[in-house]
């Protein structure tokens, strides 16, 4: 049953990706902004324009360009970036780990903070503490991530400069890494100075990304917990003399967490999307930052590559959430 579901999802994922590829390919060629016009030097002639169009394959029809590009993608060749003249795939894969690490750290912070607030709010329901948590949730939800970013830069970067506000790692530090998963690798290699430096760079952007998600998690989980607190098995646990905190953590939480898990999965994809602005704000060398440069330069092959990688990520995360949900939900697990 599970294998069947998995195969079905993989098939729909491929169709989705093909759809995304077609839409992106057509849209970025139809929207205003000709990459050749962008790169014309002073004194260029009409012949120069034709030469450049031919050089970048833009003299062919959109359909022809698409099939040439698709053929390359099937062979693992996503083309060459116009602005950097580097292979798109290596550029994108080189930056992807930075974005994944940032998004994952943000997710951890959001889950930890949101979960903690939900548990405290449930434990202290009906008190001023719960009201304060509700207000904090409201603020967290209504302030967008980039505004949190600006606020954090001013507070913890300028007024009280305790964290780095740009980049991913201090340029002065030696980086003895073989992958671009710097944080993960620094932990594995026990290079804790590097880990600390990376975290000091990543913390502010990760918190800025995490706060809105933490508010959503806190609100949803608290609601689910409150509903669960009235069901029979929780009452039974209470009659056994268990403390309220234990009842929440051991009895209510495992059941209340399922709807939150689905939401976290969906929100994680939005969180990855949010890295575009946050990475720009913190000059973080991830995929989002590169995406903005690609759009500004009308670097069509690079835009395509980045969007496809984002699409793959989104569909994989959704797939993972579905599978995790199926594994955790006994009704689905047993068919």
């Amino acid at each position, binding site marked *: 049953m599970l294998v069947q579901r998995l195969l079905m999802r993989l098939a729909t994922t491929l169709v989705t990706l093909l759809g995304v590829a077609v839409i992106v390919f057509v849209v970025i060629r139809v929207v*205003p*902004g*000709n*990459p*050749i*016009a*962008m*790169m*014309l*030097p*002073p*004194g*260029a*002639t*009409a012949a*120069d*324009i034709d*030469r450049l169009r031919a050089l970048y394959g833009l003299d062919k029809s959109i359909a022809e360009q698409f099939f040439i590009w698709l053929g390359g993608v099937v062979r693992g060749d996503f083309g060459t970036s*116009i*602005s*950097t*003249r*580097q292979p798109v795939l290596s*550029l994108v894969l*080189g*930056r992807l780990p930075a974005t994944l690490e940032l998004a994952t750290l943000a997710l951890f912070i959001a889950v930890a903070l949101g979960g903690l607030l939900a548990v405290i709010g449930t434990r202290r329901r009906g008190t001023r503490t719960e009201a304060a948590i509700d207000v904090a949730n409201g603020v967290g939800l209504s302030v967008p991530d980039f505004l949190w970013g*600006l606020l954090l*830069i*001013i507070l913890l*970067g*300028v007024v009280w*400069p*305790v*964290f*780095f*506000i*740009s980049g*991913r790692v*201090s*340029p*002065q530090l030696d980086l003895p890494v073989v992958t671009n998963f710097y944080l993960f690798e620094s932990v594995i290699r*026990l290079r*804790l*100075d590097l*880990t*600390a*430096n990376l*975290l*000091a760079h990543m913390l502010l952007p990760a918190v800025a990304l995490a706060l809105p998600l933490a508010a959503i998690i806190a609100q949803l989980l608290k609601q689910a917990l409150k509903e669960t607190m009235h069901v029979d098995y929780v009452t039974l646990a209470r009659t056994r003399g268990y403390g309220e905190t234990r009842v929440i953590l051991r009895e209510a939480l495992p059941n209340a967490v399922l709807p939150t898990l689905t939401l976290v999965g969906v929100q994680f994809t939005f969180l990855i999307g949010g890295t575009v602005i946050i990475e*720009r*704000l*913190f*000059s973080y*060398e991830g995929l989002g*930052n*590169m995406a*903005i*440069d690609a759009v*500004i330069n*009308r670097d069509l092959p690079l835009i395509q590559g980045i969007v496809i990688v984002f699409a793959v990520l989104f569909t994989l995360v959704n797939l993972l959430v579905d599978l995790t949900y199926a594994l955790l939900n006994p009704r689905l697990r047993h068919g």
Partner: protein
Amino acid sequence: MMKMNRRTLLQMSAASVTLSVALPKLAAAQTIDELVIAYNVNLPQWDPTTGPSAVNPTIQGIYQSVFDQYILQQPDLAPAPGILTDWGWNEDRSEVWMDVREGVKWHDGSDLTAEDVAWSLARVAQEETGSPIQFVWGTLANHRVEGNRVIADVAQFDPTIFKWMYFLTGYVLPKAYYERVGPGGFEAAPIGSGPYMVERFERNAFIRLKANPHYWGQKPEFESVTIKFVTDAGSRVAEIESGNSHVTLEVPYEEFDRLKNRAGLGGVAHPVSDIGMIFFNDIDAMLDDNVRKAAVHAVDKQLIIDRLLSGYGVALHTLQTPEYIAFDPTIEVEYNPDLARELLAASGYGPNNPVRFTVQTTRGFKPKDFEMIPAIVGMWRRVGIEAEIEVYEVAKHFELRAADQLAPAAFYNWGNSVGDPTTSTGFAMFGPSPHAVWDGEDLIAKIAPLWGEADEEKRIQGWKDVDRYIAENAYVLPLLQYVQPILHASGVKVVPHTSGALLPHLMTRA
């Protein structure tokens, strides 16, 4: 071997985090050993001679830190001996000759020779290298070396050929090294002969530069320089304010004024070779001389500079700034709204019966670009011009301009770091150029003979005459010369360059 348990691990982590997060404060407090610059754009590629990024004016400062141009350009835009110590044409202008400086070393310690210069020039003359300036370099052919002199045949005479040698793509690259490592190897480990060597490059993040011990010119004062790419203007302000960076540029003028006198900081605001202008297209209402002239006379440029740009700007009457060689201070177009009204009345227009057209502008591409246009539209409205504002991205502007489909009026900025009239008035106003918007035959006839004018004095006077003709006929609306704001720590002295290039080797300890 150190034994690691959970407690030790936690202690080390806590100590490391404490040490690490303290770093930003320490950097600000200590004397400057390593200069940190928050730069406003990313560096897409290292080869400064081929590919589309080679003509990006905003990254030339980085290129000039690592590579030498054939001819040195001084901060006031004047040329000076660089890798070439002397240059010129033979008598009948059928050949160019260039003497190459002796004793110059590449970053790997090998000698820079006349062969390198000849190869660099010949390489970018070939279309297949992807040189965006091939149409200029291709005017020279049959490059050859005679001792320490490089000679090339003139395939097509271009009076500005030596000016291009300190302009876009005019860089000398190492022949032997490039041929050995290829384009990919060069991108991975670029070497030049400039004041700094590339120590480390993290794409989209930073460059670490180390002073070149063999540099032929004055040795840079800062041994190590880190250039961080901080593309958001607000983040650059935070970088300098927090002490994370020592120098930054292109910040909003309001922030510049707020921070330049703050303890520990300083500021330099210097006019650069970048101007704001409004193209007129020879369509619709712009075909009426009176409308164009009224549109020009109605604009109070100084007021725009004072009110919108905090006074940072120089009002212009032609496309030449005072630093350009064809600048003529006698050409003036007065601000005269009464005259504008008279001109419009002569064509049957007035405040109650306004002439209507569209004006296009970018938003946020240059400082206050969008804000300037409503101000101008307000000035126009008072005399009888009703302009509708259309905002577009700069990419759209380029596309429309190349296709000659811009609206009757379109705001743009024009850079000309070499200061020659061909690369300002020439390419902007000569109809057949894809950059030009006004295509009048009268103007084409006046400009055409100047491209190949061999007599320099006559050539410059010719361009001055063209500028006067353009001003008299209001074929374009020049607005202002931009001023580049640079914020720096008080421990650094920054020498601004009129080209707009931020050059770390010109920076010293204050």
